């Protein structure tokens, strides 16, 4: 794929994400919580994109600072009374941790600035696949516990569990396979 096609595709994807995020905010009734969630999701997507495209020390430092800020602000929000939902503060903490984890993971690839060879692609894909299977198992277990075991868990908590589980398990699986050398 040539450079122009890649840029066009990136613009289309960015525009779609923006439309979905603005649409979500508009349909939420303009709450602060929705705005923060949208900003956090945009920050997460932006950080991942930046690290994939420009894995430099400067970018990684910005990501780490953003992660620390997210955790710090969320922690301050937990300690002081705020009109925000507790789930929003948890989300802030989680996103902060994900950003720090991303920073740590990408720092280890510093020697090969952004180079994706067949091994890293294989490990990347396999890590995502394993994370998907794990998430599917967790969803089945949660559904069984709710339906058969009578467990009561709010939908908001389920969403937060999935938001935490998917990126963190992906990074952990990829780190494990990278340490092992291969996916077999």
């Amino acid at each position, binding site marked *: 794929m040539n450079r122009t096609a890649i840029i066009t595709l990136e613009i289309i994807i960015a525009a779609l994400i923006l439309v979905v995020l603005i649409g979500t905010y508009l349909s939420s009734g303009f709450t602060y919580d929705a705005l923060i969630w949208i900003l956090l999701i945009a920050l997460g997507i932006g950080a991942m994109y930046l690290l994939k495209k420009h894995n430099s020390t400067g970018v990684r430092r910005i990501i780490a600072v953003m992660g620390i800020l997210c955790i710090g602000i969320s922690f301050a929000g937990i300690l002081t009374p705020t009109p925000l939902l507790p789930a929003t503060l948890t989300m802030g903490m989680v996103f902060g941790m994900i950003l720090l984890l991303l920073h740590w993971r990408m720092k280890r*690839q510093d*020697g*090969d600035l952004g*180079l994706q*060879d*067949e*091994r*890293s692609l294989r490990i990347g894909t396999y890590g995502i696949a394993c994370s998907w299977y794990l998430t599917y198992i967790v969803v089945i277990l949660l559904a069984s516990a709710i339906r058969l075991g009578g467990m009561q868990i709010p939908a908001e908590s389920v969403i937060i569990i999935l938001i935490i589980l998917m990126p963190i398990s992906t990074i952990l699986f990829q780190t494990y396979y*990278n340490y*092992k*050398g*291969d996916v*077999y």
Partner: protein
Amino acid sequence: MYTRIKEYRTREGLTQADLAQKAGVRRETIVFLEKGKYNPSLRLAHHIARILHTSIEELFFFDDETGPEMNNS
């Protein structure tokens, strides 16, 4: 899987980083290849064999095989 990449690389006077750069892969990949922990694609194996001026059969062999010299004897 066993490899003789390290032996051939040293003979060619290349470092792991040099070989990685010539093969267009990360240095980590060469490290795991030399340890026999990574099974490369046929394309990469062929590419490395060409860089090291040898054949794939000379570079890679599996647990149930012996080296090429021993097979010939």
